[in-house]
């Protein structure tokens, strides 16, 4: 009895706790019960031929949902397919993961537990239920690698698979999306969607109707990437660079002529700075109405000069400025800064200016994901963002236990007073650990830091390999060797890299592996805490995969960027020893607090992005309904006929009916897209200052809507009117219709914009700030 009651009590207790605490995860017990049944099918399937397996999978195909028996059969088939194709027999926990994904959860699985196979099997599962699956990953490299790696598994189960990357041609893209399962980076799929919204021929669209999305590295994609909308821009004309301004700004000095804020997001001129600039520009007044244009150029140049650092925010490669995506430490191909900033950076680096662009369309990751009726995800760190996932995506997290328990040793953070003391201690720590031959992975914050550290290590007589945005093509090789005894790897942000570090290196050499294990496994060193504890965990997670030994430690200083951004008021009286190390628990508390502040601020940005884009997405979908009508029917031609009868009849004699209809269509679509682009620019403009409305006790979001809605209602009529005008003016030459001559010019190339939103002013509490300020002054 006593024995029976104890588990009963814990079970009830567990239930109660779940109700009270509203836990971040859901139970998977109902799927755990299926595991034995899946295991029983194993022996039988092992003896079947490959063809038999394929046939069995085909028999499972259904246009409804799997029944429990079908689910068991499918899991057993999947396990066998994985074993044959890759030599990897999926563990029970992986089967749980597959079932978690099939039941539309975000499953949390630690690094090295074989998420890729889990994702592939779940994709097969959905495909066999007659749904088209998009497997969305963080970057193009992973999409391609995973698709190629898992292809044999898909083939065994009779499911077609392909991937898309930026280099994929239009025809290939269409084929890829025609497969049962398509791998692609979130940005790639997002931009395909944005491009689809701008086509002028119905056949040019590549994306099929969205059905199932499985998101790999779900936290990176759904949370980190979602802060910034995907923005597509098109080049309108050659960029102009204000060389004069660039030259003047280059001479300005921090502190004297301009200042920056502690989190490095803004820079502004001091009075001394603005008079210097005004004098240099020939004695103009920057701050009267006429100076605004010049002032914007100065501000943009100052931003480029003061806030964007070469090798931190961008690289200069092949005579071009390439942005670095700081959250991933990679070069962001095809990404640019908006609003003239790109040209200003190019002027700063004395490079020729690239084309000037304008925003054509944008979409948030949220809206992109919301198009899929079925969504699931997987990642190593989901619980930390469970609230966000629930709030924004209505997704629940399911935690899958590791196959073998994690025995990694996480040492407490080591905190120093200044970054230089910290760096010294890091070098000392690395050389000490390296002496034993234990493999070391160092995670740094940015490219510049990784290079600085590498230099310091070289000086100290240590050889290390650097992995950063400069050489991310060699990523796979570097990572493959990072687990070899005696290796030191210095890397930028590891989150979303998705590659495993295997102990002992790439060569399957048991002796090397045993040696690495004996030394204590991979030792991970973080050179500073990241802007969220989740990213810290991502780095730590590189050690101790699949029950291997491993260790991790984070170094931090109280002058790190994170502390400066989150909580610059460091408590006084923290005693440090001779090396500058602080052991006072208050320092750790302060560090954690700073991290939480930054996390909170980032979440707020996410929420604001969402709040402010919801209406835009709505308007876009309203407009798209009309656009589709123009695209798919002859609405445009009918309209022209009604408005410009004479001209229409005249043209109808010269052109075939089809050509004329297409011409009308293109004119109408051009104006629609143009007006939408203008509308977006208008909204960006309103958005910039709308927070000021809070001062008049108005709600900024409501005021934003009040400004945005009437403007939107004008678009369709305006597009029709302008289209009629253009139609009347269009010349028909021997070569056909001269649309370009009539001003109908489509952007020649498209790229993406990196857009950051200013965090909003909190509305009130001025009085408290004032009291707090006075108290502070008194205390001092």
């Amino acid at each position, binding site marked *: 009895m006593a024995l029976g009651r104890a588990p009963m009590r814990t079970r009830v207790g567990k239930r109660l706790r779940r109700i009270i605490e509203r836990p971040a995860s859901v139970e998977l017990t109902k799927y755990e019960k299926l595991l034995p049944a899946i295991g029983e099918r194993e022996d039988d399937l092992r003896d079947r031929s490959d063809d038999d397996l394929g046939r069995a999978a085909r028999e499972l195909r259904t246009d409804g949902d799997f029944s429990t028996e079908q689910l068991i059969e499918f899991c057993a088939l999947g396990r066998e397919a994985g074993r044959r194709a890759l030599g990897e027999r999926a563990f029970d926990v992986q089967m749980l993961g597959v079932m978690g994904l099939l039941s539309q959860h975000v499953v949390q699985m630690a690094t090295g537990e074989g998420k890729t196979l889990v994702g592939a099997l779940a994709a097969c599962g959905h495909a066999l239920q007659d749904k088209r699956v998009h497997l969305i990953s963080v970057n193009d490299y992973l999409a391609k690698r995973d698709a190629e790696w898992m292809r044999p598994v898909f083939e065994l189960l009779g499911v077609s698979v392909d991937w898309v990357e930026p280099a994929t041609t239009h025809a290939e893209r269409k084929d890829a999306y025609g497969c049962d399962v398509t791998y692609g980076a979130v940005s790639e799929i997002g931009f395909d969607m944005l491009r689809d919204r701008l086509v002028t021929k119905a056949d040019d669209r590549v994306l099929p109707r969205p059905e199932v999305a499985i998101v790999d590295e779900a936290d990176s994609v759904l949370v980190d990437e979602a802060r910034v909308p995907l923005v597509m821009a098109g080049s309108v004309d050659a960029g102009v660079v204000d060389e004069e301004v660039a030259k003047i700004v280059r001479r300005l000095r921090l502190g004297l002529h301009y200042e920056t*804020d502690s989190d490095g997001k803004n820079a502004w001129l001091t009075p001394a700075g*603005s008079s210097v600039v005004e004098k240099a520009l020939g004695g103009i007044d920057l701050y009267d109405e006429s100076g605004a244009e010049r002032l914007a150029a100065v501000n943009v140049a100052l931003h480029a000069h003061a806030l964007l650092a070469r090798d931190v925010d961008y690289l200069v490669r092949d005579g071009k400025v390439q942005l670095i995506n700081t959250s991933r430490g990679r070069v962001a191909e095809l990404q640019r800064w908006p609003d003239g900033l790109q040209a200003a950076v190019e002027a700063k680096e004395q490079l020729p200016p690239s084309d000037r662009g304008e925003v054509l369309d944008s979409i948030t990751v949220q809206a992109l994901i919301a198009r899929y009726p079925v969504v699931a995800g997987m990642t190593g760190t989901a619980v930390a963002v469970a609230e966000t996932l629930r709030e924004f995506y209505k997704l629940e997290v399911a935690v899958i236990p590791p196959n073998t328990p994690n025995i990694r040793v996480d040492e407490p953070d080591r905190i120093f007073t200044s970054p230089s003391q910290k760096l010294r201690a890091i070098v000392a720590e690395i050389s000490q650990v390296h002496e034993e031959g234990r493999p070391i992975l160092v995670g740094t914050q940015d490219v510049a830091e990784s290079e600085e550290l590498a230099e310091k290590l070289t000086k100290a007589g240590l050889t290390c390999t650097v992995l950063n945005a400069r050489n991310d093509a060699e990523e796979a090789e570097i990572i493959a060797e990072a687990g070899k005894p005696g290796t030191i790897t210095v890397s930028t942000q590891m989150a979303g890299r998705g590659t495993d570090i295997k102990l002992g290196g790439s060569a399957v050499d048991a002796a090397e592996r045993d040696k690495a294990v004996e030394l204590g496994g991979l030792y991970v060193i973080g050179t500073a805490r990241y802007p969220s504890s989740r990213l810290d965990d991502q780095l730590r997670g590189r050690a101790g995969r699949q029950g291997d030994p491993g260790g991790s430690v984070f170094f931090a200083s109280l002058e790190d960027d994170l502390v400066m951004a989150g909580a610059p008021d460091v408590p006084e009286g923290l005693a440090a020893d001779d090396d500058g190390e602080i052991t006072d628990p208050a320092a750790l508390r302060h560090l954690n607090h700073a991290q*939480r502040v930054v996390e909170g601020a980032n979440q707020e940005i996410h929420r604001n992005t969402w709040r402010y884009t919801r209406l835009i997405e709505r308007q876009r979908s309203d407009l798209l309904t009309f656009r589709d009508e123009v695209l798919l029917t002859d609405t445009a031609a009918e309209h022209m006929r009604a408005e410009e009868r004479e001209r229409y009849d005249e043209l109808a004699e010269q052109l075939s009916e089809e050509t004329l209809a297409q011409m009308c269509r293109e004119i109408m679509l051009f104006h629609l897209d143009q007006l939408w682009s203008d509308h977006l*620019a208008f909204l960006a*403009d309103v958005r910039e200052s709308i927070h000021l409305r809070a*001062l008049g006790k*108005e709600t900024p979001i409501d005021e934003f809507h*009040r400004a945005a809605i009437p403007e939107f209602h004008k678009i369709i009529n305006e597009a029709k009117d302008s289209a009629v005008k253009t139609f009347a003016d269009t010349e028909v030459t021997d070569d056909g219709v001269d649309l370009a001559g009539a001003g109908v010019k489509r952007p020649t190339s498209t790229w993406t914009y990196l857009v950051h939103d200013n965090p909003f002013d909190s509305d009130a509490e001025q009085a408290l700030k004032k*009291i707090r300020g006075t108290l502070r002054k008194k205390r001092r």
Partner: protein
Amino acid sequence: MLSVIRSALATPDLRKKILFTLFIVVVYRIGAVTPAPGVSYENVQACGEQIGDSGAQGVYSLLNLFSGGALLQLSIFATGIMPYITASIIIQLLTVVIPRFEELKKEGQSGQGKLTQYTRYLTIALAVLQATGVVALAARGGMFQGCDREVIPDDGIIGTSLIVLTMAAGTAVMMWMGELITERGIGNGMSMLIFLNIAARIPIEGKQILDSRGGAVFAVVCVFALAIIASVVFVEQGQRRIPVQYAKRMVGRRMYGGTSTYLPIKVNQAGVIPVIFASSLLYLPDLVGRLVGDPTDADSWFQQFLQTHVVNQSSPIHIGGYFLLIIFFTYFYISITFNVDERAEDMKKYGGFIPGIRPGRPTAEYLHFVLGRITLPGSIYLGTVAVLPNFFLSVTQEGANQNFPFGGTAVLIMVGVGLDTMKQIESQLMQRNYEGFLR
């Protein structure tokens, strides 16, 4: 106006929100008139009438106003939401003093959630305190002075604690209802409940006038009341728009100068707070006099001065003092809530400027200048609205006071909340492609 309501009701989820709010309102009003257990309903009614006739409710009238009359009914919602308001103010103030609170406040939503939790606990504690005070006062006969009926027949420890518990629980329920409205209904729940409390007094007060003064006076009062409300609505929407330009981006073809980028400063930037400060301050001498002095010793010069000039709301000294205090508090409140230096600094940081004015100090000085100019009419307006009832209602009815729902604090709060809620409904309507109606 009617078309607004029609289109609001025609939108399914908005209709759901409005109906939900109405449902909470009904539940709340039922609670507000349900006497707490152990209170003699009969005696409370009798005393209430007696007091209402003599107009001697001065000290508690503000509290009574905020509780929608529930206080003097000794109902289960007698303590109302005042404990919640006090608790949130205290917690806000504590963020200044306690570092841990300050940290929580900065940590975004999760930290704010914890602070809200603390506010709730403190609300319960304060509600128990306030309920104890109310019950003790009522049991000793101090609540209805001059009425010798026993409002709480059983004043033993168990009987009174039951009432205290009930009232504290009532506050907790109101807090919950407020949050429910914010979450699932329309407008800000707490403001809504205050609005409701004040609005609930209108029919009662109106009937009193009708009964005691007759139809003609009643009609005049109604006309005046409507005029006051209309003018308050007018002034409340008035704002000075200072043009602002942001020059951080190189914009393309189209410029949208002037249409939407401005910094609004309201004529009544301070809202209703200065009036509440001023009236509380004017009650203070009376309260002190009652607590310190011997109320029976009505002949001392202090008591006499107090009664004739300060407590008596139609005395010129009271009216003049009230008016001046409001003007003072308006300036004071704006000076601490509108930090011109910080605004100028923010604008400078984000690349904004007022055309023709340099950023930084000159901008701050300019804002200060404009603010000073606009505050003068604003404060005079506030003072006028606040003292109006003293002037003209004292002529029509003995014992009418500041908190008569057609004037002063009450009308300012009602119009404020009403406008906010309308704007919110409008914004939601507009999102569903309806045309705006608030011009």
